[in-house]
């Protein structure tokens, strides 16, 4: 178990989240089980779901944690820190970024709520969830992307998926 005064060496989850993850393993919900999705990516997904809710404090921490530091992939790390930066009070010094304990605590709380929402999804028909999530993604796209500016030239950019499908 981590001493809260020491630098964290893993991403932690609550026991409740651990049970939810076990259920995901069993049911292979949205192919989020470990044979199809890395733990890192699962955590990123939980954070993404949690972004639409209020972070909740971790209670009854699962002793083994979810991912060791060394196993957190670069994408997940980027997402963790982008969240911290976007939430940071001081965007000049970005002091929060260097406080690992704070970073890990914040993203853990975000994902904590996210796992509960995933559990709610699992109580519904998976097919219905897929189409519901697609609709939500459409809304997110229109709200966040369509109305924002692009970082690339949409006219000339070629989608790698399109290229793969010879569209």
């Amino acid at each position: 178990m981590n001493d809260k005064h020491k630098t964290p060496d893993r991403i932690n989850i609550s026991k409740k989240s651990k049970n939810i993850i076990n259920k995901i393993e069993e049911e292979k919900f949205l192919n989020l089980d470990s044979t199809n999705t890395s733990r890192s990516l699962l955590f990123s997904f939980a954070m993404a779901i949690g972004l639409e809710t209020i972070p909740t404090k971790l209670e009854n921490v699962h002793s083994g944690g979810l991912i060791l530091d060394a196993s957190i992939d670069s994408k997940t790390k980027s997402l963790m820190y982008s969240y911290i930066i976007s939430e940071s009070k001081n965007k000049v010094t970005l002091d929060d970024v260097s406080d690992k304990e704070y970073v890990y605590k914040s993203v853990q709380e975000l994902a904590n709520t996210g796992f509960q929402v995933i559990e709610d999804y699992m109580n519904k028909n998976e097919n219905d969830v897929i189409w519901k999530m697609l609709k939500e993604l459409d809304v997110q796209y229109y709200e966040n992307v369509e109305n924002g500016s692009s970082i690339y030239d949409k006219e000339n950019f070629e989608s790698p998926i399109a290229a793969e499908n010879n569209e």
Partner: protein
Amino acid sequence: MMRFNSIEILNYRQYKKLKFDFPKNNEYDLHVIVGQNGMGKTNILNAVTWCLYGVEPHLGDGSRSLPKMNLESKKEAIDNDLDTVNVEVKIFTEDSGQLISFQRKLPIGVDKDFEYKEEFLVTATDIANNTKTYENDEAIEFVNRYMPEKIREYFYFDGEQLHNYFLSDQNAKIKDSVHTISQVDMLTRIKERMGKLIIKKQKEAGKLAPDVDKINKEISIVKSKVERFETNINELKKQILKSENIIIENTEHLRGQDNLPELEERYQVLKLKLENLEKDRGTLIKELKAFIRDNKIALSFYSSAKETIRIIQEKESDNSLPPNIDKGLLKKVLKEHKCFLCGRELNLDSEKKVKKILDQIMVSSQTSHLLLSIKSELERIVIEAELYLKNKDIILKRVRKNEHEIQEIEIELQKIDNEINRFTDKKQIKLWHTERNEHTKLFKFNNQRIGSEKKQAEDAYVELSSLERKLEESMAKLNECKKVNEMILFSKKSKNVIESVEVEMMDEVKINMEELTSNYFDKLVWKKNTYKNIKLDENYHLDLIHVDGYSCVGSCSAAERSLLALSFTLALHEVSGFNSLLFIDTPVARVSDLNRINFADVLKEVSKNKQIIMTFSPDEYSHEVKKIFEPSVSTKIQLVTEQEKFTVFN
């Protein structure tokens, strides 16, 4: 015309002792015997054929394993210490005032069912009361005068087989029948005798002249060759005809059900396609789920990622992101007024510079390193989010296409399944198909072979003719052979004459049979405007011709085929002069409903001029059939069993 007055059966199979009387009580010489299955109806027919010919051609599988003698009689004989039981059948007939009885007796040992010598006796009493008895061979000859064994199937027949008379390979039997009734047998025997005589004389000539002998030997070899080819050709002709009939029969069976194999093949192909599409669907759903997962992440973090990238870009442009400099170290340098690189004390100027650097590096180098490392990853996430719509369209298009294809195939599979389920006996249909295909190949193959055999036979004939000419020439040269040569020539001429008379007589009979069969059929058939005539071709293949000109013996109903068989039989009786009764076991077995009534009407009509004895099961002797027969029937007999041990009258 010969008719049966009565049949006495003693100790024969189901019959312990029974006498069937068949008096003619009205204008119809019609006699009906009704009994459940197993009562012994068919064994009455067997009793008749056994009595007259010593054969039982209609035994069922159950009877085949049982001895001829009645088991109850056997038991009684054992109880009474008797060694044998006499199985006897007597048939009492009359023909134009002459009374003729046929009696066959067979003693059978009760111990091991051993059959002793049979006795067959025919007793004929003429109008003047003169009686003559014939035994054994003489008796057999007598029977053949009235009801030749070769054509017994046209006097006593099994109604179950009536409709099949002109299918399969029955034409050989028809040819034989015609041969018998035209009494061409005698000519054939003379022809064969002549042939043997010619060979004998040629051998004699051969002994007188070695040259002639040599040629004779060569002729003998070539004749064997010719015989072999002729045998092969006849066999091939039979096989070709058999194949042809099976093809016609099976095509008829498969009418409306022909496409089962194609349907099943298509079904399997579609099933395989469906399996592959369902596999693809699994993959597509997996891809869709990954798409949702990745884009949920990208779109949810889009704003924060963009914000972070903006901040990083800002800091890069105003140099807030330093190289990896330890801020702590600089702070320590200022505190201790000492450079830890060169070891010198800091002067005012240096101190100012360090302070400036420190002020500029607002972000720690660790943070700066982190920011730079996450920038490219965040850019990727942002791009992914921005391509969401395009990528979604692509993947959903593929998913929908797959769903649509699956749906289409499922609909077609259902359609095919419904069609396949129409076929009530798929196994049988497949058998018919396979059989038809096999015989189609065989038909083609045999036709090719027959061509080759015919060619070889032709060549052999030419060789034979040449050798025979050579032989004649050689013999003509030799005086010793002159007399023998004259005899051979005369014999050959006679043989040729006999052959042509034989053919002429057969043809005349064939034409008569064709005409009479047509006439009877035309008179008796219930569909008056459907059939044109009947044809007997050179192979004695009987065909029924539709008014539109096509052959339809394979496609007419079982009742009509039975009627055709009956018409042929009546024609045969008339042409042959063997005008005897008809005994039919279960005449309407293969005939259904309305046609049963029609057929019953026909039989009643025929019985005005010919005795007809028929056996029926109660089901066959239905209300409709009864309605036709009962008012006209001369005798009606009901068979029952006595304590299930033997058959008696009700």
